[in-house]
């Protein structure tokens, strides 16, 4: 079962532009995490946001969480070629016995 679903599936932008990816989920969650995956590599943790938080920042990353809409967004500002990767959201909840449920990811391409 997929809890998180990312939107769009793919995104191509010019270097320097901002990139926004969205994640929707179905049940009440405990936490939501965002991860990055470069081609052929493992996933790298970016940000964890708790259900009682609305926004978190880390460098050029900004994550928002709207529990009323059951959605989150990841904003990458001033994108760089090195940001080219797939981005995944993952949620944990009582319904999943707190196991992480992952979305299918957004593939982000930054054009130089």
């Amino acid at each position: 079962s997929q809890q998180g679903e990312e939107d769009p599936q793919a995104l191509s932008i010019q270097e320097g532009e901002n990139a926004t990816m969205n994640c929707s989920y179905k049940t009440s969650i405990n936490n939501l995490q965002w991860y990055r995956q470069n081609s052929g590599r493992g996933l790298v943790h970016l940000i964890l946001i708790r259900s009682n938080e609305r926004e978190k920042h880390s460098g050029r990353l900004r994550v928002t969480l709207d529990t009323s809409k059951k959605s989150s967004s990841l904003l990458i500002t001033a994108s760089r070629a090195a940001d080219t990767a797939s981005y995944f959201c993952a949620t944990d909840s009582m319904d999943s016995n707190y196991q992480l449920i992952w979305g299918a990811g957004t593939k982000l391409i930054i054009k130089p």
Partner: protein
Amino acid sequence: DAGITQSPRHKVTETGTPVTLRCHQTENHRYMYWYRQDPGHGLRLIHYSYGVKDTDKGEVSDGYSVSRSKTEDFLLTLESATSSQTSVYFCAISGQGFSQPQHFGDGTRLSIL
């Protein structure tokens, strides 16, 4: 980067053969996980471990078994591989449970012909 090593990195085998994948960590983390990643799907949890000899099933555990005899090693075994188990397998670790950030190995690409 967290010290997680998966072996082998690539493997091709035939249907019906047993296959064992190894995950080795040097972080002394309590929790270890095995996931599979398939096109169009998010990661799906196969099994996880919350301590030596303590393991539990994930979402897609059928056809897989695991063992953890030492803190640092977590083995995933396909007793009799099937073509539907062709996938990329990732090991992950975390100090606490699922709710905490997980650190991933670089995966094992397994092809079953």
